[in-house]
């Protein structure tokens, strides 16, 4: 069994009575790329800030590199690289000086490390430019550079491709995949660009309104994300009974807008049509669809 890098158990966090996280439990193993998917305000950033020690849980426990004690966990954070919310640098200092400041602070030997990172994130030519004069994409690159400064074993990246141009997005993706494959770096990443997330994640956690709806591996997701039958029917309850009793199907999901997604027997559309007509269930649509990360998440949020 692979080593558990991060384990969060029953985490609850409220801000002025509003639940930001509600009984969330996630587990990230070494070498995984964990994609945290959720809409704005779902609790992704709050969760990441807790791992980074910037926010505190009201209830629950966090285990980082097998350490649960806050003081011990603090030491383990030296193995973690983070980019959470805005990159956060001194606006009147140059990119180079900003990285040098953190290099000194983190006790990383060798001044050349800063130059290496600047080259890696393609900011070598603008290293003398003040951070306040950087574009959003450049700021993001510098933020990623800082996260890579101490060669982390575990990377926490909150919307890392925000503001990046298409070439930048590809570069970041390649860098992360390379780190994951060559150095076995574990990554916790959130992004609104789900197609991009689908390109790299090996495990997903779906958050909505502070609740973890599902934690699923990319392989299992892929199985689920194959083709399904979208049944639009007036009497969804009757249809469910029919699917279970008459056809012995178990793998389907009911949505509030009178839709049922059937993940097995998808070639039996005609039979389903006939049965629905005989039983007067009010069938109004039957369509074969392919599920991807985007509509998988949207369907889940709708049910929630």
């Amino acid at each position, binding site marked *: 069994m692979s080593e558990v890098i991060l384990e969060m158990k029953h985490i609850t966090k409220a801000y002025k009575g509003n639940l930001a996280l509600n009984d969330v439990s996630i587990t990230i193993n070494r070498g995984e790329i964990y994609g945290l998917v959720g809409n704005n305000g779902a609790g992704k950033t709050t969760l990441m800030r807790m791992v980074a020690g910037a926010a505190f849980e009201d209830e629950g426990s966090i285990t980082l590199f097998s350490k649960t004690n806050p003081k011990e966990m603090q030491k383990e954070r030296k193995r973690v690289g983070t980019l959470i919310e805005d990159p*956060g640098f001194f606006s*009147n200092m140059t990119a180079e000086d900003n990285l040098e400041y*953190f290099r000194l602070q983190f006790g990383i030997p060798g001044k050349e490390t800063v130059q290496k990172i600047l080259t890696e994130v393609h900011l070598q030519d603008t290293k003398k430019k003040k951070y306040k004069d950087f574009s959003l994409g450049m700021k993001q690159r510098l933020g990623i550079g800082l996260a890579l400064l101490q060669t982390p074993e575990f990377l926490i990246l909150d919307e890392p491709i925000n503001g990046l141009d298409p070439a930048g997005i590809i570069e970041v993706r390649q860098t992360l995949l390379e780190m994951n494959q060559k150095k076995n770096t574990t990554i916790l990443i959130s992004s609104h660009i789900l197609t991009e997330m689908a390109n790299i994640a090996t495990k997903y956690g779906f958050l909505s309104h502070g609740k973890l709806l599902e934690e699923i591996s990319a392989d299992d997701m892929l199985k689920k994300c194959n083709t399904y039958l979208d049944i639009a029917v007036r009497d969804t309850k009757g249809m469910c009974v029919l699917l279970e009793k008459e056809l012995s199907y178990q793998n389907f999901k009911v949505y509030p807008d009178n839709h049922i997604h059937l993940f097995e027997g998808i070639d039996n559309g005609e039979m389903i049509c006939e049965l629905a007509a005989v039983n007067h269930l009010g069938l109004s649509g039957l369509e074969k669809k392919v599920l991807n990360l985007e509509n998988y998440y949207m369907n889940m949020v709708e049910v929630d």
Partner: protein
Amino acid sequence: MLNYIKSEGFRALKNKNIKIMIGICMALMFSLVAILYYFKSESGFSYANTRYAVGNIYTSMTLILILTLVIVTILDDSEYKNHTIKHSVAFGISREEIYFGRFLVMVIASTIIYVILTAFLAITSYFMLNHSNVGEYMILARISLGSFTCLIAGLSVTYYFFMSMENPAIAATWSMVLLFALPAVFNLLGMKFEAAKILSGYMPSNCIDSGSKLVESNGNNMHAIIVASIVGAVWTVAFLAFGMLRFQKKEIK
């Protein structure tokens, strides 16, 4: 802690606003000496001497106290919008190291700035003005030493508010209230109530202002030096402790 202090020292050295502030203060000091120098030969003008020039520092220690507020503001460098502390926390640097490390660098930077400015005034007045030869430089040294902890208390109070509040304007206002308005109120109340008069003696700005025993005695009153030093030290430690407690519980943005 040493790495954190090194990085903060690096940042202080790179801070242009600190250099601008030192430049402005030096320009003001030089203009003071230059004006005195200009009127040096006028008969009846008794201020063109070193005692008057350096006296401008040791009789205006409350102005230096205001300068501590300016230094904290400059060295804080808009943390409320830069959000850089989160990286230090995320890297596993303890909050104690962050809080005390930053403060220590502020103390070192402020002390260096004070030494540079007083040395500049002392040297320019020495070369440009008449020598009073009444031990004015020793008076300056004694009052500076006696005021040291009270000036550090100014840093500690301002730093406390800057580290615990999101809005720097509100933080600066609270610092002004605590360091200057409150002592002024106690001074007024002290005219009527004995308890308020006693309490007003334990406010840093009252210990070092021009009417204090420390300054009036030209720094020769050992009791005044000890009281000022203890008052400053107690305020410093108290606000460092309050600040640390709040910072431990603070969620970093």
